[in-house]
């Protein structure tokens, strides 16, 4: 509207340009009025503790030095001690094992489900939605449920496996290291599969049906259509699902905390739960912070890739 005015009344252009710049300034002010409170909230509530955490990880803050205010900087000592510690190395390994196996299963099965539910049939919509309820549940209840279902004697998993003659004797799921990890992964996949399915479905619906039809006319098999149409067009969705999956799985906390307490003998302890133990059971705040920083650095690397991907799509 203003542009039109400028061209129709050239002699008034100067004034209008000035008016326009004050309008622009006013709009900027309005924009900031809306954005800044939320932004400031994030800086104060999240940004400040994040920086404080970095500082903590280079000091020797524990329950004694915190109370007396006598903590000092110790450089990389916390990090060195952590990496020399066998338990920490086990915890780091556990976190990666848990994440990689979860990603593998939940992505593959989630993708198969997404392909299956993208077909047109009567029940596709309602059931796809129903399956998602597991994702919305509090993780603490899911973990509680896992603890019950994987119980040795009263657990339903053992009972089912025995009835199907897959095992002869009850498995002591949560009492052995490897089996406890398997149980935790299984429970996490129950939550992760529907989530992967949901995100991949939204990617699949974006692919035009005509592409498949013309490929069929040209005699392409199902495998070829998947290989040359679905996969390439789904690549952005697949990448972001994998990266988000990594971020969500790597930071696991509630599941292990309730289902196994990180046990038996740290077999299901991950960076999140181990950091909690150091800070709030042993009151070694600085070591807890350093552990959390290791968690953060791993997420940060993946997060950078994710952000690059997102900002590419944003343009």
């Amino acid at each position: 509207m203003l542009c039109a005015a400028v061209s129709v009344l050239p002699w008034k252009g100067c004034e209008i340009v000035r008016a326009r710049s004050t309008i622009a300034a006013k709009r900027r002010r309005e924009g900031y009025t809306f954005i800044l409170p939320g932004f400031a909230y994030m800086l104060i509530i999240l940004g400040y503790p994040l920086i404080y955490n970095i500082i903590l990880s280079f000091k020797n803050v524990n329950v004694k030095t915190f109370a007396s205010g006598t903590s000092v900087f110790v450089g990389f000592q916390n990090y060195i001690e952590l990496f020399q510690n066998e338990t920490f190395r086990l915890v780091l390994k556990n976190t990666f094992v848990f994440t990689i196996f979860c990603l593998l299963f939940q992505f593959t099965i989630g993708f198969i489900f997404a392909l299956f539910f993208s077909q047109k049939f009567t029940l596709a919509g309602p059931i796809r939605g129903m399956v998602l309820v597991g994702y919305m549940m509090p993780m603490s209840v899911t973990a509680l449920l896992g603890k019950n279902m994987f119980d040795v004697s009263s657990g339903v998993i053992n009972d089912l496996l025995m009835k199907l003659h897959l095992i002869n004797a009850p498995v002591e799921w949560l009492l052995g290291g490897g089996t406890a990890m398997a149980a935790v992964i299984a429970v996490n996949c129950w939550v992760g599969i529907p989530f992967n399915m949901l995100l991949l479905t939204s990617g699949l619906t974006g692919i035009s049906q005509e592409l498949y039809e013309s490929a069929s006319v040209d005699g392409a098999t199902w495998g070829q259509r998947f290989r040359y149409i679905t996969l390439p067009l789904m690549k952005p969705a697949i990448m972001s699902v994998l990266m988000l999956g990594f971020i969500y799985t790597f930071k696991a906390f509630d599941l292990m905390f309730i289902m196994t307490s990180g046990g038996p003998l740290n077999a299901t302890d991950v960076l999140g739960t181990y950091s909690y133990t150091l800070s709030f059971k042993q009151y070694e705040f600085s070591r807890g912070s350093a552990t959390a920083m290791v968690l953060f650095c791993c997420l940060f690397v993946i997060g950078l890739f994710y952000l690059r991907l997102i900002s590419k799509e944003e343009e």
Partner: protein
Amino acid sequence: MEKTAAKATFASSKEKRKNYINGAIAILIAVIFLFPIYWLVAMSFKSDAESFGKIVTYYPHEFTLKPWIENFSDAEFVKSLKNSMIIALLSMTLSMTFGVPAAYGMGRYKVPGSKGFLLTFLVTQMLPASLMLTPMYLIFNKLNLLGTYLGPALAISSGSIPFIVVTLRPYFKSVPTALDDAARIDGCGVFRSFFKIMIPAIKTGIITVVVISFLNGWNDLAYSMTFNVKPEMRPLTANIYKFQSKWGTKWNCIMAYGTILVLPVILLFVFLQKYIVGGLTAGAVKE
């Protein structure tokens, strides 16, 4: 002519058969995925002996409401339930107050630095609670925020606000400019047009973020457990351990506890499914 008609019925019966087979597979998937939830609810109606007996029963043979009654007649349980409500509502209110205007500002205004703002919200969405626990605990300790409802609510909202911004920004962007231009010409101020025009225009998106930010508070374990050491300030999630040792092997009571925690989620899910599903997709992946 007759031949093509026969062909058509053949094709449609083939379609029909495919529909049935796919339907059967879908039902099987649903049964497997919903079984744990069925199990949770079924356990909560079993008698004590049945719930920890050596013989696993697949439905309550002696149906009883006792586990539910035992939970609700426990004063500590009722208090925890109330705490869950307070923390969820408080964090929801905080998140909406800061998140919705920010989403509006970023969706409707071109301001210098907007890319940086968006990046900040995207990054903060990825920060896990376990990373923030230690520094927040020490900071809240100095600010006397430990043992309050505000402590966990402040922390939970820092996760919900980025979600709201990322989810609602495209909604605000999609509202035609003519709508608020018209309001401005009618003499509506900026804030009036925000509340009277924009918010109602994106009702769907608003419902989504209200539900999700409520559930973020309701589902929280880490923050509430760490910042509120006293059990009487803790929500249901954070008191699970306490009740587990209280009920011992009475799995029926523990599962009734779990069912009560899941109930609001299921109710919201049943009634508002399309909003939740849409919101989750929009928030997680750029379309």
